[in-house]
């Protein structure tokens, strides 16, 4: 298994120092600036082409609108964006058979911020890019949520017009569910995945970076829907309303397809990296739980997202050239869309939730100073949830008119999925038994995660029960359930990850006081916002409505005010992030302040460009806390013969090298 370790990240002969001033100016190399220019040019070209091809049709003349230029504009725009970024440059040089300029991929050594705005191949740079991207998408989605809650303050006075309200609802939901699917896999998975398995790089750095650069394109395209009047279907995009909708709907389908592509690439890269790039001694049973969660999520992405991309493509086909995939009257079926969407949609929510489990497992074992209880149970839980998630999607469709004898079947599978999900609680609770618990900020968020996910998970049992689901489906009860599991679970885990890992990633500490303030305000206001929603749903308020029964107004007002305060707590987080990173810049003083045993804590903050000077040899698991005379987790400077022997020997999964 000859793995080429020294690849593009290696320095060419003669240029070893970081101070080498031979880099061309940022502006002369491909980057975001060239990407934007070519994207605009591409959009115009596509638009012209679309008009040329299709303006003669009767439907377009009658409707005074044409979807073909918009879709073609988006396609050419994305292509222009990628070409401008330099994604295809390596291919280009290869085809020409010439040597590419030497400073194209040395950017990991390049000082300054330019490398974050280019097509950089270092997974750590991609991780930071994802972090800023995901934070931006989250904040934008949050602003839309504030608009929704403002509208819902009164059942009869309307702040927003009816179609504006639907546009805001759709943008909020789609930004959160679509753009945020990589909220942990992106920043932390890409950054720490290779570090945690002892690798210097990922398997496919170009695919990984491409996966990131598709996300700003998807973000801009999704928001451009606002310029076209938005889309009226919410994040689920149900047909045939989606075929009927005006031009903003194209933005939804196209952005979702792009994001889907990004997820497939990221997942594929992660699977291959985890299987092939583990350091010698990093057996499957020694992998940190976070890597297990990344691994299971990647399978979910690779297997379920293509179905969504197909559904988006068919939806666009129905809208642009009058196919009838989803038109019942012409032999298509609206049920087809529902099934395709939810076949993806259910694994999607586990794509959102599972990485949260992984982060929490890491945080909990470090701050309890105890091994993770039931490692095999935890890993089985991750994989079990992943596999079972493909068998439950009809629970979104219990009342839709599906075959009635399918409903008990899917009730069973949905209830069974709560068994592996419960393993996370078993593992957490077991780790707390006779531990030494430190209440650092990541640990606080982990505790909040358990509390929120417990409520979210139990409410899921109510929803999986078909008779109870008759009242709860499509109401605010469902809204409360998924906000508890996804926001209360995933976002709290994301915050735990940020407070735990950002100092390692940047070498700069986040402010403790602001962090604690952020935690308490976020936890309290999150619960005061979303707990009453269970009651609202049970009392008959459907989702996505702007008018509701008068007797529900007080509760809605309470929720809206809480939501504004929750927004305030996120603002505190933003202030903490910005001020700590930009102004206070308190440097970390120790490499491993938490005395953690996982590999990333054995490296400086931030880790050097090639991660490890030499590929480490792993000597023991990362959870051996409390064991007297435990071996160190890895030997970071193994003698040269050990590595050669490792590769020439039995290959992956070999026993510890004798030092």
């Amino acid at each position, binding site marked *: 298994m000859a793995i080429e370790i020294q690849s593009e990240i290696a320095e060419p002969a003669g240029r070893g120092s970081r101070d080498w001033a031979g880099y061309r100016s940022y502006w002369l190399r491909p980057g975001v600036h060239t990407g934007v220019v070519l994207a605009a040019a591409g959009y115009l070209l596509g638009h012209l082409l679309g008009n040329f091809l299709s303006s003669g049709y009767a439907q377009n003349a009658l409707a005074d609108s044409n979807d073909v230029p918009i879709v073609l504009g988006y396609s050419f725009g994305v292509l222009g964006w990628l070409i401008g970024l330099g994604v295809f440059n390596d291919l280009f040089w290869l085809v020409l058979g010439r040597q590419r300029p030497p400073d194209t991929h040395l950017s990991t050594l390049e000082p300054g911020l330019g490398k974050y705005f280019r097509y950089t191949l270092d997974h750590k740079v991609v991780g930071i890019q994802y972090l800023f991207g995901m934070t931006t998408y989250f904040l934008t989605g949050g602003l839309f949520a504030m608009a929704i809650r403002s509208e819902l303050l009164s059942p009869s006075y309307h702040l927003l017009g009816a179609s504006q309200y639907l546009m805001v609802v759709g943008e909020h939901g789609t930004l959160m569910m679509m753009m945020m699917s990589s909220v942990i896999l992106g920043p932390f998975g890409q950054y720490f995945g290779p570090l945690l398995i002892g690798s210097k790089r990922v398997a496919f750095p170009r695919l990984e970076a491409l996966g990131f650069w598709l996300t700003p394109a998807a973000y801009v395209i999704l928001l451009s829907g606002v310029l076209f009047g938005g889309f009226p279907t919410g994040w689920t995009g149900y047909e045939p309303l989606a075929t009927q909708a005006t031009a903003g709907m194209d933005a939804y389908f196209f952005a979702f397809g792009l994001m889907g592509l990004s997820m497939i690439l990221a997942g594929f890269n992660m699977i291959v990296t985890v299987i092939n790039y583990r350091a010698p001694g990093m057996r499957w049973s020694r992998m940190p739980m976070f890597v297990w969660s990344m691994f299971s999520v990647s399978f979910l992405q690779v297997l379920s997202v293509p179905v969504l991309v197909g559904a988006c493509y068919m939806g666009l086909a129905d809208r642009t050239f009058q196919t009838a995939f989803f038109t019942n009257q012409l032999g298509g079926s609206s049920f087809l869309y529902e099934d395709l969407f939810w076949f993806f949609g259910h694994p999607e929510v586990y794509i959102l939730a599972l990485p949260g489990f992984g982060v929490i497992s890491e945080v909990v074992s470090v701050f309890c100073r105890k091994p993770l209880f039931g490692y095999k149970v935890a890993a089985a839980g991750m994989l079990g949830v992943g596999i079972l998630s493909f068998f439950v999607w009809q629970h979104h469709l219990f009342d839709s008119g599906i075959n009635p004898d399918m409903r008990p079947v899917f009730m069973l599978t949905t*209830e069974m999925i709560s068994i592996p999900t419960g393993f996370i609680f078993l593992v957490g609770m077991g780790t707390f038994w006779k531990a030494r618990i430190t209440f650092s900020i990541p640990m606080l968020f982990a505790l909040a995660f358990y509390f929120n996910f417990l409520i979210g998970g139990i409410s899921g049992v109510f929803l999986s029960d078909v008779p109870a689901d008759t009242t709860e489906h499509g109401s605010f009860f469902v809204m409360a359930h998924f906000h508890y599991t996804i926001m209360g679970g995933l976002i709290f885990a994301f915050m735990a990850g940020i407070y735990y890992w950002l100092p390692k990633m940047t070498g700069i500490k986040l402010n403790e006081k602001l962090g604690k303030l952020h935690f308490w305000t976020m936890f309290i206001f999150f619960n005061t916002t979303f707990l009453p929603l269970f009651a609202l749903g049970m009392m008959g308020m459907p989702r996505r409505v702007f008018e509701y029964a008068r007797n529900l107004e007080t509760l809605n007002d309470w929720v809206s005010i809480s939501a504004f305060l929750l927004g305030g707590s996120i603002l505190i987080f933003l202030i903490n992030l910005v001020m700590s990173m930009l102004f206070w810049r308190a440097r970390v003083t120790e490499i491993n302040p938490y005395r953690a045993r996982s590999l990333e804590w054995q490296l400086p903050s931030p880790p050097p460009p090639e991660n490890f000077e030499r590929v480490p040899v792993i000597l023991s698991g990362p959870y051996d806390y409390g064991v007297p005379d435990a071996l160190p987790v890895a030997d970071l400077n193994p003698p040269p013969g050990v590595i050669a022997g490792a590769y020439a020997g039995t290959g992956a999964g070999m026993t510890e090298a004798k030092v």
Partner: protein
Amino acid sequence: MTTENTTENDTAPKPETNHWLRMSLSWLVLALVVDLLIWFVWYPHLPPGDMSDSAKHQQFDIAVLAVTGAPVVIAVLLYFIYSIIVWRARPGDESDGAPIYGNNKVAAAWIIVTAAIVMWAFAFGTAELIGPAGAGAGEGPNPIWKLAGKTSSTWTPGSGDMLEVQVIGQQWAWTYRYPQFGGMESFELYLPLDTPVTFHVTSLDVIHSFWAYQLGVKADANPQVDNVAYTTPKQLGGFTVRCNELCGIWHGAMYNYGKVVSQAGFSGWAAGVQRKEQTNGLLAVLPAYSLTYDPTVLPQLTSSNNLNKVDGITGGAGYYYPPSDPVTP
């Protein structure tokens, strides 16, 4: 995996606090109290109320699920609160916790208990689904759990026959057709007391969802599909009908109110509406029961060949697909 540590390494051994016992006892007491509160205090007020038999069964269902779920929630919360109080690191204590990697017995017990709860929930849920004839949920065009009751082509008070109501969703209002009354249609949903009702829910354009909240009925309205749901109203009074599936701009405003009245009152109302629509000639052109509202299903119009069609289609089609395509509404 190593086994659990049992003794501390102290010079003066003191009795080991039995954490299990403490936690279990407190859990038992709390869970019992909460379950009793749920069952006796909260249950009668649980949504969706008991206006119809499907609502009543759902209320029972939710109460049982709450009684099952509450002890689980209490157990987990109690454990976490206990552990963060008892096992927190004292200031200055930098030592590690006990190296417990796992415990097969604990894991097995957990799996068995959670599996048992899940199986119980599944069995109970299925029983509650079958018993009340589908629990008010839409069963699609071929329902398998039906209400007992004959269907006849007319309905009279006291006959015990099922009342058929076709619920039509169109952007953005609900209308209701009564096939047993000549196919008369109305914007108001009136239902007779103590009568098994079959709802046939369909849509003329996009996906809507018929949610009669106090009746505990929810069925998606899909174009060209008949979604059947059952219930039996048991109390007089008004109820709300809301659209439960995003159907366009006025989805939030797509609601109206229905009423459960006495059987005689219902009969009187229906007769009145039927008479009015008969007099002004509308009744003849409302198909008694149809998914597409194509008047070609009406024999009297087909034979006279006197149908109003534009470009070969009988309903406003939007001209999205060219008229040469077959089968348009």
